């Protein structure tokens, strides 16, 4: 098709701007910034324009970043850099594509795809929803808890699509004007977005944060992440539940959510259940055996391929473009920290005058606002290198872990517009809600979440000695 290669006029302007953003910082002399830093600065500005405008696909921008860094600031750079600069080996930038965090995520994708293939998600939803009875408020709570649980391991989008497929007939059966339609349509994407915060494999921004944190020599285990994130994600989830019930109360006494599915007991399905159970168990017991989550993550890959539970088709069906997008962020962070761009950026502002907590809040809020309009992963890719630079420079008293964590969480909490996340787009497509409903409820949930994570969570973490 011709549309594959021709760029519409709407894309031409951002493309031209991106090109200028790339080359201008290299042409002009920027005081205090070394040539390598100037080149990465250009790449960074280009990345901002491309990831915001989506003039080329998000994953294409990620690949471009890796390529440009190899061409411009690696030991194989086309244009010589001063001898004083120790250029990173070019393979360092390629290595982002197989960064341990990427392998952890790959394992997560194998589990998620297997769960979908063998209908494990639907069966779990059916079984777990039973105890919640038939009252609308309990059903909404049940849907939210199950959606959040599934999206801790599966993609937020797939989880939303699965759950929404059950809910559509219920919505269609409700009388016109019943506000329960709105809370039913909103509870799923909200829970999926919030649930993604809960584990390292829950959503790509978590992987970007983890990748950046480990580049700084800090190791966060699967369980540690859950300890930091899950309790507060649960509080935000319950708050969102109460909010939806109050904003959009139901006139129904009871509703019936009918989920048709049966457990797959074929041999491949059983092999998958065992593999998934073992993987999750190993993830949760790292303190006992010491095997890193990124190493455990490769276990389902090996087992499922070796047992042919996953064939070539399933391997090709993995969302490689998401992994590459995350890798682009990791590579960008690498470039920022090795080129001296980080020190220069931090030096632009007199940080000492700004309280650390205010800065943490600013980072989370910025992530929230940015990812309300652009992709969560792109937001994390752009902000986390800056946050990490700030934290590791020592200019501000904010731990590296928190800087990256708050940005990832802020990105996940953005759910005020249909375009904020794919789960929101799915909810909007049902026609059960108007944009204003999502703006109202989504902004409140986002704001409450950010405030809770930035101002309350760190107090509790240090009380319970959860922070390394």
């Amino acid at each position, binding site marked *: 098709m011709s549309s594959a290669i021709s760029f519409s006029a709407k894309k031409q302007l951002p493309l031209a701007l991106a090109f200028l953003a790339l080359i201008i910082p290299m042409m002009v002399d920027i005081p205090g910034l070394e040539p390598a830093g100037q080149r990465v600065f250009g790449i960074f500005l280009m990345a901002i324009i491309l990831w915001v405008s989506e003039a080329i696909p998000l994953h294409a921008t990620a690949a471009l970043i890796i390529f440009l860094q190899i061409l411009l600031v690696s030991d194989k750079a086309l244009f010589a850099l001063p001898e004083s600069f120790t250029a990173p080996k070019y393979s360092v930038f390629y290595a982002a594509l197989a960064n341990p965090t990427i392998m952890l995520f790959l394992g997560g994708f194998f589990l998620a795809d297997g769960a979908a293939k063998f209908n494990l998600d639907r069966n779990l939803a059916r079984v777990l929803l039973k105890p919640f009875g038939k009252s609308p408020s309990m059903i909404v709570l049940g849907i939210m808890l199950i959606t959040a649980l599934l999206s801790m391991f599966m993609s937020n989008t*797939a989880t939303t*699509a*699965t759950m929404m*497929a059950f809910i559509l007939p219920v919505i269609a059966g409700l009388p016109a004007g019943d506000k329960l339609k709105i809370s039913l349509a909103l509870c799923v994407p909200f829970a999926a977005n919030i649930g993604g915060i809960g584990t390292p494999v829950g959503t790509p921004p978590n992987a970007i944060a983890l990748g950046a944190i480990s580049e700084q020599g800090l190791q966060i285990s699967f369980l540690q992440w859950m300890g930091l994130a899950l309790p507060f994600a649960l509080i935000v989830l319950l708050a969102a539940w109460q909010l939806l019930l109050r904003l959009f109360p139901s006139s129904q006494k009871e509703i019936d959510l009918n989920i048709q599915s049966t457990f797959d007991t074929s041999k491949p399905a059983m092999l998958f259940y065992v593999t998934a159970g073992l993987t999750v168990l190993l993830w949760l017991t790292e303190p006992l055996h010491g095997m890193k989550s990124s190493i455990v993550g490769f276990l389902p890959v090996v087992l499922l391929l070796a047992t042919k539970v996953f064939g070539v088709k399933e391997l090709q069906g993995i969302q490689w473009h998401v992994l590459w997008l995350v890798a682009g962020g990791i590579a960008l962070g690498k470039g920022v920290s090795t080129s001296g761009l980080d020190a220069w950026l931090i030096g632009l502002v007199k940080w000492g005058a700004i309280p650390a907590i205010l800065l943490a809040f600013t980072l989370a809020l910025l992530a929230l606002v940015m990812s309300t309009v652009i992709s969560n992963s792109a937001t994390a890719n752009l902000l986390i290198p800056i946050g990490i630079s700030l934290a590791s420079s020592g200019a501000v008293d904010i731990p590296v872990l928190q800087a990256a964590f708050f940005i990832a969480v802020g990105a996940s909490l953005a759910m005020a517009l249909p375009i904020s996340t794919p789960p929101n787009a*799915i909810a909007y*497509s049902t026609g059960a809600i108007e944009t204003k409903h999502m703006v109202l409820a989504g902004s409140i949930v986002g704001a409450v979440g950010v405030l809770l994570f930035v101002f309350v969570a760190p107090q509790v973490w240090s009380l319970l000695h959860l922070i390394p």
Partner: protein
Amino acid sequence: MNKLVLLSIEDEREVRDALLRDLKPFADAFRIESAEDIPEAEEVIAECEAEGDTLALLLCDHVLPGEDGIDFLIRYHQDHPEKGTRKILVTGQAGHDATIQAVNQGRLHYYISKPWTETELQDVVREELTEYVIEQDLDPLPYIQSLNGPKLLEHLSR
């Protein structure tokens, strides 16, 4: 924006109007066109394609002035097998043999016998278009409300 096109080919004016009336629920998400014979239908298809729209569904009567509906469906299928257009025959007069031929050579997707009921027609069109969106791997979100939403979402989740 590029739209999917539903084209009904029917020579009798009242029947054509009835078809269009029953297809109304799809008018928000789809472009609905009609033609009274095959040459006009081909013009409409060419026009739609020139405007960037895609023919997703043909609702075709059998007995038409000039070329028969079944002959056209077979020809269209053989000329454009890759397009995946859903083909429905809406007729009361197609003989046994012609219908079999339509199924075998034209990969007919559905046979609606006249007179149809509004629900029957809408159900068939909804399911056929749902299949089309899934088979062509289109973004299902614009069609959640007008087509089989749960089925489209299930596909999206897999």
